[in-house]
């Protein structure tokens, strides 16, 4: 019997849901956090108490309904308590990605006129302090990690624990105050200003009202039910809409337990300790896991290698026949699931970008029931989901009930722009009517994605509409589609396909250093750094054969003719990727203009001089020279196999 979710018409805000759970299930575990090597549990009563005390103290400090509150830090209990506390007061919250640079904070806080901020530790507090005059409206900076904080004497800085203690005093003096505040906020009020990934420009802030958020997460839960026996480990960036939907939305609606790992590097082993029943992993994370798995197997003895290869082969074969290989499961997959922390997984989702079919099938064969989903921040995250009844590596499933999805301006193949509307979508972009009007036409959200429906009503997403390109000879192609094919090679970390208004296609490739370096060690190829490895002729040969392999599956006009190995990895700090790690094509084509010209020139070298941004914000110059390699249609001669 599925758990009966709270009535969204009564409990129409997130703090009301929290209060609902704390009243009915005060002693049930709501959250867990690993600290000092031990899992600390928070019951619903603890959760509410912390949120309530912080909310009362924030309110006393001057935070009122309609204000904006920024949050930055690692995923942990304090992060979500800060969010819910601000929302209890009626404030709107903006979450920042933890590796965000000061400029972006300056832009967004200035633009939204945020009045207070939660910044977890010294590193994050520094970002606000460094803003200087640009911090403008920020009156309070709340920190929870005391380390290194004694150095600061800025009057705006206050400690989380001090505020909670102050809130407890306020509560005992006037116990009705918190309830009054929570009741004064309605489902129509904005809960979250969610940053959109902004593949093109400065991020925009989508206004997500409380009621919409609650109703939409309940709709999602109808398609993928959860209850208090479910376990979730929060590892995705907290400001991202899907992590908000799961950690906050699913957590509050279904009482799914949410656990926060100790830190980023321990996430995998912490996940294994919890054994989540539900997870969402971005395609590139899954590809990384698959690649790491292969890298480790390359390190292992011949017997282990044989078991792995054989097991994967048997699992894949069984999967193609619609079954499961019992032997492969016993010999390989059960151990792999346990190792990865997937032993208890009942439901798993992936989305945000397309994914290599081989990786997808590998996880299905492993017994991880991956379902692809599709959605946008503006539409409160996912609104299509696969039903998981058949193996389906291409589509993102059918829309949730009540969500209307249409294809407009379709070409002869039925491919056109995806537009969507549903009752719980965003209100508009915060203080940016123009952008709202651009994306919303007659109540439909124009996603900018190109896709089509198959005969079963399932949606397939191909690429961004504006990224579908045409060569000079008139061939239409989707760079992303080809890039994804390339990226399934364990040796290729990132790829950018070029060819718009050119005669043929070329590629800029970033090697996957973890794997290629291992391969090079085995093959006894000496190298020093990423840059150096990328320039080795042996590596060029390796990648050339991988590209030739991909070329075999592409029509002649879409084959990659030339490529080069970039001297550095594409990086979000350099603006080349979005924070969710999608390639920013305009930035790449601008920054690497000379390289691209060289790729279409006659010579076999490309010279480059570019600016890099270090993690501490400093800038420097890099000069590099790269070889350009031609790929002929035929597969390359077999390389000396590693190992």
């Amino acid at each position, binding site marked *: 019997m599925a758990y009966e979710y709270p009535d969204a018409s009564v409990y129409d805000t997130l703090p009301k849901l929290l209060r609902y759970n704390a009243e009915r299930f005060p002693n049930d575990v709501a959250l867990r956090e690993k*600290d*000092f*090597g*031990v899992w600390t549990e928070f019951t619903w009563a603890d959760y509410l108490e912390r949120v309530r005390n912080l909310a009362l103290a924030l309110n006393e400090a001057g935070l009122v309904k309609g204000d904006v509150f920024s949050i930055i830090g690692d995923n942990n209990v304090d992060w979500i308590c800060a969010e819910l506390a601000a929302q209890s007061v009626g404030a709107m919250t903006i979450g920042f990605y933890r590796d965000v640079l000061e400029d972006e904070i300056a832009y967004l806080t200035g633009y939204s006129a945020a009045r207070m901020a939660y910044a977890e530790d010294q590193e994050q507090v*520094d970002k606000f*302090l*460094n803003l*200087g005059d640009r911090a403008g409206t920020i009156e309070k900076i709340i920190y929870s990690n005391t*380390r*290194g904080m*004694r*150095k*600061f*004497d*800025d009057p705006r800085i206050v400690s989380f624990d001090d505020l909670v203690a102050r809130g407890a005093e306020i509560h005992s003096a006037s116990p009705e105050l918190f309830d009054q505040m929570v009741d004064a906020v309605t489902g129509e009020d904005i809960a979250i200003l969610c940053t959109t990934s902004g593949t093109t420009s400065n991020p925009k802030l989508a206004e997500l009202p409380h009621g919409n958020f609650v109703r939409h997460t309940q709709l999602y839960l109808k398609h993928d039910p959860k209850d208090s026996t479910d376990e979730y480990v929060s590892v995705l960036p907290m400001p991202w809409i899907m992590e908000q939907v799961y950690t906050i939305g699913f957590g509050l609606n279904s009482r799914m337990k949410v656990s926060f790992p*100790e*830190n980023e*590097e*321990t996430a995998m*082993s912490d996940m294994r300790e919890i054994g989540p029943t539900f997870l969402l992993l971005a395609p590139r994370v899954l590809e990384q896991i698959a690649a790491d798995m292969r890298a480790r197997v390359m390190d292992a003895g011949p017997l282990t290698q044989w078991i792995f290869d054989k097991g994967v082969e048997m699992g894949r074969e069984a999967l193609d026949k619609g079954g499961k290989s019992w032997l492969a499961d016993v010999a390989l997959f059960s151990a792999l699931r346990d190792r990865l922390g997937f032993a208890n997984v009942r439901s798993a989702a992936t989305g945000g970008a397309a994914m290599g079919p081989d990786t997808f099938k590998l996880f299905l064969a492993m017994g991880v029931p991956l379902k692809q989903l599709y959605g946008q921040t503006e539409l409160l995250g996912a609104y299509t989901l696969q039903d998981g009844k058949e193996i389906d590596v291409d589509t993102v499933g059918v829309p949730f009930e009540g969500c209307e999805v249409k294809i407009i301006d379709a070409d002869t193949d039925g491919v056109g722009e995806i537009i969507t509307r549903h009752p719980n979508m965003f209100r508009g972009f915060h203080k940016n009517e123009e952008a709202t009007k651009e994306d919303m036409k007659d109540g439909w959200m124009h996603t900018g994605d190109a896709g089509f429906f198959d005969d079963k009503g399932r949606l397939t997403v191909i690429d961004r509409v504006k990224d579908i390109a045409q060569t000079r000879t008139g061939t239409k192609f989707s760079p992303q589609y080809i890039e994804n094919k390339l990226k399934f090679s364990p040796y290729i970390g990132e790829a950018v396909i070029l060819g718009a208004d050119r005669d043929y296609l070329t590629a800029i490739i970033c090697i996957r250093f973890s794997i290629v370096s291992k391969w090079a060690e085995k093959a006894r190829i000496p190298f020093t*750094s990423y*840059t*150096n490895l*990328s*320039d080795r002729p042996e590596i060029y040969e390796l990648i050339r054969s991988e590209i030739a392999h991909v070329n075999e599956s592409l029509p002649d006009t879409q084959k990659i003719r030339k490529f080069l190995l970039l*001297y*550095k990895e594409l990086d979000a700090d350099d603006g080349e990727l979005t924070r969710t790690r999608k390639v920013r094509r305009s930035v790449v084509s601008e920054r690497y203009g000379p390289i691209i010209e060289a790729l279409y020139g006659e010579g076999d070298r490309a010279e480059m001089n570019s600016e*890099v941004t270090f993690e*501490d*914000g*400093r*800038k*420097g*110059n*890099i*000069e*590099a*020279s*790269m070889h350009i390699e031609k790929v002929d249609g035929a597969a390359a001669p077999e390389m000396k196999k590693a190992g």
Partner: protein
Amino acid sequence: MAEAQVIDSGGVNPPSGSVDTRTIGDPVLAVENIIVKFGGVTAINDVSFDVRKGEIRAIIGPNGAGKSSMLNVLNGFYKPRSGQIKFAGKTFPSMDPYYAASHGIARTFQNIALFRGMSTLDNLMTGRLLKMKSNFFWQCLYFGPAQKEELENRAHVERVIDFLEIQPIRRTPVGRLPYGLQKRVELGRALAMDPDILLLDEPMAGMNVEEKEDMSRFIMDVNEEFGTTVILIEHDMGVVMDLSDRVVVLDYGVKIADGTPDEVRANQNVIDAYLGVSHD
């Protein structure tokens, strides 16, 4: 070869509102007229200096100057021929290692001296051994006072792990860790002893720039957060000059300078010792 050259275009300023909250107190440790000889070699010749509570004190000097010998005198590894050591209000002709360790002096070694087959956690727990009072019998049973004690000590070690940000390697055998991390674990073991005075013998030897920056930050944090007095030997002059409050310079076993980094930098004897002068 792809030649990538990084050209640094300037550093960043420290954040505004940053203040020094440390307090430097009276001398807690002093050596007076110390002489150490190995056979006919005089390793340390009549050296005196003091260390004040809460400061970072560096001992520098060219190779063979007697820096490590000095550190070994401080925690009782070597017995000086003559001279005396003042510590915790008492005067000793030489220090006893057990007395030093049990009275709050912890150290790390130039060549890492960890138990390579044991995990990070277990290595850190060895730093707590001196604090364990329950007897062998209880410890075998892991029951009663032994259990309580073990939990308390583990909690302490976990705080050190958190402080040094080595959670991901908690269960990893230290022999498998890269060099820089092993150095950090060794610092962790010294910190696990809850020391008042920390002796660091070349904590940054053989590290790359990033590892050095990390280690410098940890040393500063230990000093600032816990008020721990730090005595360190280091070859990297940039690190020494940035970190330390006062510097002692040794050359051929003789103290040739003692003062703040700026004073020492300007001292002609120091310049001669490092750059070399012609000996007639």
